[in-house]
């Protein structure tokens, strides 16, 4: 087969997956910026919101865009609830406590997803099947949806942080919550809002992911993999997730292309090897600030 065809298509899929990973990673990073903890409940937020879209559209015949919007709202609600119930009471306590608490939330959300999904019914979102040929690349509508959704979320968040006063205030809080609160910034509200936005981002990423991988409880696996993108970018980096996600996407696609004949399945686990390597040699990632506490 044509090498160009192979490389171009693999690269395109890597790009799509890369943007999805980037959006998932962004969810982690937004939370990390304000609470200095990794939100381990995010994988289940992804499953939960993906199921909400699926159940609404498949059983209640809500049009997909409306169901998607609803899931975004729900993601926001879940994020805010997590902040209110976990992050705020645990403020001032070791970060490990908050992370452990998010694990508790992981369980709760899994139970909730089961209820919503009526016992994990599986399904596809039923997006129209349209295919395009762009040069050697074959693309489908779901590819474009995945790219558009994840990219617009990332760009939106970056622009917000850069140019709106709200975003600038959030950056201030993420840099120094104590100082921000001294200047009268509504730190509590901004923190809550950040968690909420992280929830929205996760819900959007969940939709993009569902477009590419159907709706199933396994979606949490990809969200865990996205931790690698998040670390690679640096946990407190916003725009860096694009690079982190793309590196991960390319590594995974080309990695499994090369490795599957030797060790089947290793390519899909490369994310975790990346995670370990980053943690060992460059724990603050490519774009993270080096303020991370060292021993």
């Amino acid at each position, binding site marked *: 087969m044509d090498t160009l065809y192979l490389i171009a298509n693999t690269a395109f899929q890597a790009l799509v997956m890369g943007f999805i990973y980037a959006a998932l990673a962004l969810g982690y990073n937004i939370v990390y910026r304000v609470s200095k903890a990794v939100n381990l409940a995010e994988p289940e937020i992804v499953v939960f919101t993906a199921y909400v879209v699926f159940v609404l559209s498949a059983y209640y015949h809500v049009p997909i865009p409306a169901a998607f919007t609803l899931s975004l709202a729900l993601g926001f609600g879940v994020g805010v609830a997590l902040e209110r119930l976990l992050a705020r009471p645990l403020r001032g306590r070791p970060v490990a406590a908050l992370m452990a608490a998010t694990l508790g939330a992981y369980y709760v959300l899994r139970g909730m997803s089961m209820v919503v999904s009526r016992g994990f019914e599986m399904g596809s979102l039923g997006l129209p099947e349209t295919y395009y040929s762009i040069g050697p690349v074959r693309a489908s509508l779901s590819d474009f949806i995945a790219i558009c959704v994840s990219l617009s979320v990332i760009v939106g968040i970056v622009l917000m942080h850069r140019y709106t006063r709200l975003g600038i205030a959030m950056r201030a809080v993420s840099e120094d919550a104590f100082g921000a609160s001294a200047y009268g*910034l509504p730190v509590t509200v901004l923190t809550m809002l950040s968690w909420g936005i992280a929830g929205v981002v996760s819900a959007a990423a969940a939709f993009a992911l569902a477009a590419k991988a159907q709706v199933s409880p396994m979606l949490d696996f990809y969200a865990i993999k996205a931790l690698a993108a998040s670390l690679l970018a640096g946990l407190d980096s916003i725009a860096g997730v694009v690079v982190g996600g793309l590196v991960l996407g390319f590594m995974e696609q080309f990695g499994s292309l090369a490795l599957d004949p030797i060790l089947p399945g290793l390519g899909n686990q490369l994310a975790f090897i990346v995670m370990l390597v980053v943690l060992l040699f460059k724990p603050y990632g490519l774009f993270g600030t080096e303020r991370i506490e060292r021993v």
Partner: protein
Amino acid sequence: MASKHLLEVNNIEVVYHPYILVLKGISISVPRNSIVAILGPNGAGKTTLLKAISGLIKLERGKVTKGSIIFDGEHIENMEPENISRRGIVYVVEGRRIFKELTVEENIEAVAFAWRRSSRDADIVYKYFPRLKAKRKVRAGYLSGGEQQMLAIGLALLAKPKLLLLDEPSLGLAPKIVAELYQNIRELYEEEKLTILLAEQNARKALEIADYGYILENGRIVLEGPAEKLREDKDVREFYLGVTGRKGYRSVKWYRRKKRWV
């Protein structure tokens, strides 16, 4: 209701999570439109007192366990820090707490967001600290120490404070910059009709602009009085102003016989 004093701290005790008693029965009062200085060595509890007033001890699991803090006729002890700052107490934290990753302009935007101030209001910062105007696109982290302190105070101004809490503004600054800074603070105080509570180790500078002073040691107030009186006090002169009136510390090793009031 307007009492003579804008702020009254009555006999408070502060405990850090959960058992460490830091302040032991402190009372101070700050009259409207005055500068009150709190002096004392490192670790005396100056910062804790300011944090207790501003509510920020909550973020560090601290708590006011006894006594009351009354601001403008209202009890504010153990309130959420945001609610306190909404009432007009703004705390300029020790060590030039600004947002180093943000540009000067963004620093101002962020605080202006909190107070819903328009950009025109924000010009007040540049008015008092014209040095900052030239550096509005510079990341705050790259400013000099004095500029950072100016920015910090400028940010506090955006909150239109009734009471400004300044914590060690002179810390780590060259004497020349300190002089300029204190000049600016004085101007501010006069033109904006502010009330300032100032915590300082640099007692000489502080007493230059203050009206009244408290001296804090080991979480207790050991001495208080009008600034000019403190300036004259023998012990204060000896221990805080470094004026010994003797032959010079070299021969006396004054620090070894440093007297404690407690």
